[in-house]
């Protein structure tokens, strides 16, 4: 009797086994969902969800499961959540990462576990160079590229002197280095402010006023961008000294910055009005669902979902074929909302950068608009330090 029972159980278990082929594709998404920068994390999550909806929530016929984790903007929390995703949830892909310092802390655990890590935002120079990994891909940019583009634009405008400001962490330093690399004028001052808790820039703005530069370049993402712009206007500098930005004005900060941001240019690899079909559909569906436009953080997350999908489809759902997954991702063979791009040897995109400006549209609402292409097919300058070749 007992043997009969055991036999039945074994048969049933065998029968259940083929159903395991419908094992879902598990994706871990790490971003910031609390505190003032939660608005960025929510934008990324909304965009990722829209991408999955567009894919019918299946990749190569397998259902997709996403686990969202909050890094609270802290590297130590990000590492804990990454380890939870790879060890406990056993995800196939880890996507996300707004902040460069959080990404740098989580890089080693994830790539050592041979899980693919796709950064939908942060692009520290270390990962583009010596720490490049076959398991890391970026759907955004390398931190220096965007300010380098802005430096080019400042040259085109004939700016002679500049004062640089940014927060004192990995990305802030990358940004200021990036501007210095291309800007041909003279840098008359540089200030790195304490991150993330220093939100009062009065001391530094007083120094800007005293240095009398032709222009000011800043990088202050998220809430800090709102505070900086408010204080820039309050100190009276806005009318006197032109401001050039990277990652300081976007769809998440514009509702709070409002008219203060009018006429302040920024450089970016994606603007909401880029004329390709994938982008039109993404922006329209996002607007319909959330009554506001997506930001570049969201666009990069949307692309990350599609990059993962292209790889899952190519291996027909068999994610153990990691080399095949990597080869497919290297082709960047999917409809990106920024238009077609290629990957460099370090798995960072080689792409165009555009000038975005803040204008009032026909309805009197503030909107970001593409003005011109600053640079085509820009590649980051750290790819030589990466030893990967393919």
């Amino acid at each position, binding site marked *: 009797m007992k043997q009969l029972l055991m036999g039945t159980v074994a048969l049933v278990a065998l029968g259940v086994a083929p159903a395991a082929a419908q094992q879902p594709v598990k994706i871990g998404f790490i971003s910031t969902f609390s*505190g*003032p920068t939660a608005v960025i994390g929510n934008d990324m999550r909304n965009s990722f969800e829209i991408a999955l909806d567009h894919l019918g929530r299946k990749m190569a016929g397998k259902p997709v499961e996403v686990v969202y984790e909050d890094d609270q903007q802290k590297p130590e929390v990000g590492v804990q959540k990454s380890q939870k995703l790879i060890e406990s949830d056993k995800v196939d892909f880890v996507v996300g990462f707004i902040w460069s310092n959080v990404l740098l802390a989580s890089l080693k655990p994830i790539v050592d576990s041979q899980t693919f890590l796709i950064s939908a935002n942060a692009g520290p120079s270390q990962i583009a160079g010596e720490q490049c990994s076959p398991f890391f891909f970026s759907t955004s940019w390398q931190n220096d590229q965007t300010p380098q583009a802005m430096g080019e634009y400042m040259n085109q405008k004939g700016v002679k002197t500049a004062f640089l400001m940014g927060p004192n962490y990995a990305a802030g330093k990358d940004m200021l280095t990036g501007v210095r690399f291309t800007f041909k004028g003279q840098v008359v001052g540089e200030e790195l402010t304490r991150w993330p808790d220093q939100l009062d820039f009065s001391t530094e703005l007083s120094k800007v006023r005293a240095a009398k530069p032709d222009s000011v370049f800043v990088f202050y993402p998220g809430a800090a961008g709102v505070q900086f712009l*408010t*204080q820039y206007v309050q*100190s*009276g500098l806005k009318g006197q000294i032109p401001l050039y930005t990277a990652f300081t004005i976007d769809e998440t900060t514009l509702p709070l910055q409002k008219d203060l941001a009018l006429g302040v240019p920024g450089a970016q690899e994606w603007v909401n009005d880029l004329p390709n079909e994938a982008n039109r559909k993404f922006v329209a569906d996002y607007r319909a669902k959330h009554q506001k436009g997506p930001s570049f953080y969201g666009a990069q997350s949307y692309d990350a979902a599609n990059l993962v999908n292209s790889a899952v489809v190519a291996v027909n759902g068999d994610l153990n074929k990691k080399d095949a997954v990597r080869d497919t991702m290297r082709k960047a063979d999917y409809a990106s909302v920024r238009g077609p791009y290629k990957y460099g040897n370090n798995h960072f995109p080689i792409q165009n950068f555009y000038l975005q400006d803040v204008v009032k549209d026909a309805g009197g609402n503030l909107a970001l608009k593409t003005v011109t292409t600053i640079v085509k097919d820009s590649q980051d300058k750290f790819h030589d330090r990466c030893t990967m070749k393919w």
Partner: protein
Amino acid sequence: MLLFLEQCLNGLQFGLLLFLLAAGLTLVFGIMDLVNLAHGSLYMMGAYFAATFTAWTDSFVAGALLALLATLLLGMILEVVALRPLYGRDHLDHVLGTFGLILFFNELVRIVWGPAGLSLPLPTGLIYPVELLPGLFYPTYRIVIIVVALVVALFLYVLVMHTRLGMLIRAGASNREMTGALGININLLYTLVFGLGAALAGLAGLMQAPILTVQIGMGENILILAFVVIIIGGIGSIRGAFIAAVLVGLIDTVGRAFLPDLLRLVLSSRGASTVAPAMSSMMIYLLMAIVLVLRPEGLFPASGK
């Protein structure tokens, strides 16, 4: 020269804001002998109330006044409900109890207002700078902060020195048992003092809100500085809190302004930017340590002997 003046104004503004926070804290510590870690939470509640009421009434001033009233009431209710059991107990019990209040308020804010924080925009009239001296521009709103804080300081001075309530406060700070033995309604006095402290903290929070964000835990960092200020100034002494707060504000700001340039003479630019804020923070704590060693009761102690 103008730069130095401007940085001094920045330091003064920061110091005066710190004074508002420290004044309440020193009163509560001095008169009620209560270590109130939840003071930073009242600062946060003031900012959240102001953001909410300003959004409702569409007026910054109305929103600010309502928020002050709300924080005053909140303080008084808090004192009656949560803090009365703590009187007369060990300071560590106070720390434990009020730390629990910090956690409580953080979660309450998360539940009521969500995790993302709010913003408090300035009325348009205050957005642009004013020219104080030829070539010296300063943001109008920060001038407003300085003026309001000075007015409040004057009001506190008049209250403490020239009214009966103030006399009771000074008596309580000097010698609590005696004041109680003389038949003064200590309970009512404590509730009023705590409410006053809460209102001051709320004022500091709501005035700072348009410059910084309104977010969960915003009071925690500045609370530490407020404790340093009352230790330097002398516990229970508002005059001490005023002088110490302005001192701390000036050291922090002028340090942040001129130290990096000084350090750049010997360090690299990046190194100087990292070391300078750390050093100016260190100087504040160094000052506190020196005061504790040389004059432990503070620079202007309340109980004159």
